[in-house]
């Protein structure tokens, strides 16, 4: 397996883990929060909301303006 393939598989595995965590969180049979829940929790203070919104803006700038 080439280094490039290992890198791609690494990204795929991490993204699959993130999706899996979201699915587990939605099942309500464990203590894992959904992404909406923990984002909501992080955004309770104004600073947290500002940081998350800036992260969202950065994502848009990174993928659509660059």
């Amino acid at each position, binding site marked *: 397996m*080439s*280094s*490039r393939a290992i*890198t*791609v598989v*690494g*990204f795929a595995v*991490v*993204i699959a*883990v*993130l999706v899996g*965590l979201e699915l587990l*969180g939605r099942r309500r049979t*464990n*203590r*894992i*929060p959904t*992404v*909406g*829940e*923990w*984002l*909501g*929790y992080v*955004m*309770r203070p*104004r600073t947290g*909301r500002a940081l*998350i*919104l800036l992260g*969202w*803006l950065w*994502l*848009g*700038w*990174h*993928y*659509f*303006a*660059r």
Partner: protein
Amino acid sequence: MAADNLPAQPADGNGADRAPSATRLPMLSVLGSRRARQLLIAAIVVGYAWFAGGSAPFTNRALISVLIPGAVLGAIAYGRPPQRVPAPESIDVTGFSYWIVAVALLFEWEASSFRDGSPRWHPSLTELINPILTPHSIKSAAFVVWLLAGWGLVKR
């Protein structure tokens, strides 16, 4: 008796036919206007995403097309926030730690390729995603997803 629980009926008997339609019509009109408003907003979002998706990278048009939604959603979030989904008072630390570890892994994997200058043998996530976003339609669809994610954050 069961009849005691029924709403009072008009004495003439014809009112029983008129009353439901009289209440239903304004409701239909409200639903219709809400539907029309949703369709209008969807058309604006898709149209804007199509416009933004057509801008070349590293141009002022591309930059402004990202900054405008950022400014609008920022103003809504802090100026006139919509009715928000109630945030949890607390979250389970152990459950949250799984997210922290996974997100940290993603950033570490990305940072290591970024540090190496994103060579072909160790590309960054951006290098892998950019070719996928090249077609106008895909880029516009991704822009719609990004806008909806932003609105989702404002609603949280």
